[in-house]
């Protein structure tokens, strides 16, 4: 097929036209829907001329934590000071590290999560976010 194509072109070139043989394995016109989505542009802000300098609320995109026992406690207690993205942003951490992190929130940062809920939160993080079991 290709040889035939080249021969046709050579014939045309031979008949005084200067033809460029593009025999490349060209790919064109491939479009598909994307998993990446798109990010909408923000509208220009409405600014006043008074002494108040402000910006809109900082955006918090939806985030799905791994389903399981203890997720609700995480959403209630951890979410007081920080969004759950502080959990999913971490690499998979060993069980002992998760325990130390939750204890740090109580002891160093004064989170005052009740004992039962503290244990539930630790067990939840250890069940879903360690190198052995993290999926998302």
């Amino acid at each position: 097929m290709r040889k035939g194509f080249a021969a046709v072109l050579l014939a045309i070139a031979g008949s005084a036209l200067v033809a460029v043989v593009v025999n490349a394995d060209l790919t064109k016109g491939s479009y598909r829907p994307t998993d990446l989505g798109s990010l909408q542009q923000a509208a220009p802000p409405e600014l006043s001329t008074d002494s108040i300098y402000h910006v809109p609320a900082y955006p918090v995109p939806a985030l799905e934590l791994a389903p399981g026992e203890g997720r609700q406690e995480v959403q209630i207690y951890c979410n007081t000071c920080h969004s759950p993205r502080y959990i999913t942003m971490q690499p998979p951490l060993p069980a002992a590290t998760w325990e130390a992190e939750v204890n740090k929130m109580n002891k160093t940062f004064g989170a005052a999560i009740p004992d039962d809920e503290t244990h539930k939160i630790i067990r939840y993080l250890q069940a879903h976010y360690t190198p052995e079991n993290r999926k998302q």
Partner: protein
Amino acid sequence: MNLTRGFLARRSFLKMFGAAGGGLAVSPWLNASLASAQELPTVKPIEGFTGPGANPHWNSVGPYIAEPQKAPLILMTDRPVQLETPRGYFRTAFTPNEAFYVRWHLEGIPNGIDLREWKLQVEGNVSKVFALSLPELMQKFKAVSIAAANQCSGNSRSRLQPRVAGAQWGNGAMGNAMWTGVRLRELLDEAGVKSNSVQVQFQGLETGMGPAGLGSSRFLKSLDLNNPVLDECVVAYLMNGEPLPMLNGFPVRLIVPGYFATYWMKCLTWIRVLDAPDENFWMKTGYRVPDTPRGNTTPEDVKADTVKTVPIGRMPVRSFLISPDGSSKIPLGMGITLRGIAFSGFGRVTRVEVWDDEDKNWLDAKLDDEHGAYSFRTWEAPWTARSPARHVLAVRATDEKGNVQSDEPVWNPGGYLWNRIERQEIVVGSAV
């Protein structure tokens, strides 16, 4: 007419065209394109997290997000806000304000400030306590400008092995700007620091939900009064000639040239002279590094509690290859230009060298103009591969104190001070 029908109609037209025009030179590659178009995948999302191995990417792996006054940046966390600057913004020595990374500690960060009410307070162990409105600060004191790089203490934390908890930054928790404001020293002199003072503490408008007195309630940082860096500090109200974005510390931010960003207090509102060392969490517990070469230690020594720590200080020398970034294949024989940046908290970058796996020699890159001892400095170097292969390039910098980047990794429990030599795989393809 719906889209599917339109698409089919176009295909039919092309098929007919191909069939009818069998003798035309265009037809074979039109047919070829239709065949392969069906097989091409779309761009896949990056993995949602990295680990337990090191993050292999230049940046962190979060999604893009559009925050107020910002270009789309890489989301680390949303509340409080932490954003990483994508690699491409480091092609220039000065990082655009809208692309400058963001790192807050506590969820109570300002959305708005009334400049009629806001005042910078200079207080504590001084002869004269005073407060300045922004116009007073701008008019009563001489304006100075300094180009200085700002880098998060935990920049590149995702490189550490074993991984440590904390914001899993790639390399983009850094930026360089021209900062304009007034000298901290002039403000301290105006207040009259009493002779028994030991430190000066900085407090911004960041507050948290935690109980008073704990690190979760206030973010506070202090510098020793005998630290020479105080003479270089600037209380900046301009960043690259513009007001600071809210997320970067509007209306004023402390600039501590050469030092990690933890001291560069955003929304600086209290400058407080202390007569005793600051023992708040962010000095006594947070942001401390092992008192060892390069801040290195081991998990075993940490467990044994034998590691003496000191507050983090100056930034070790670093350099980065910014382009090419590995996203494009380079045809063999094409001489390309490697470009990047280098900086050091210990002073001027005096040398940048590049290495490849064919030569295995460190070759000098050309340093571009300097913007100041603590600024990013751009560099470039020509590069041509000799064989089609997956090549590895490396870059290292030397500063005026003779500090050279090492190829040994860094590990400490805070994930600070990473400055190992950076590598980049570049794929060179055959071109014949």
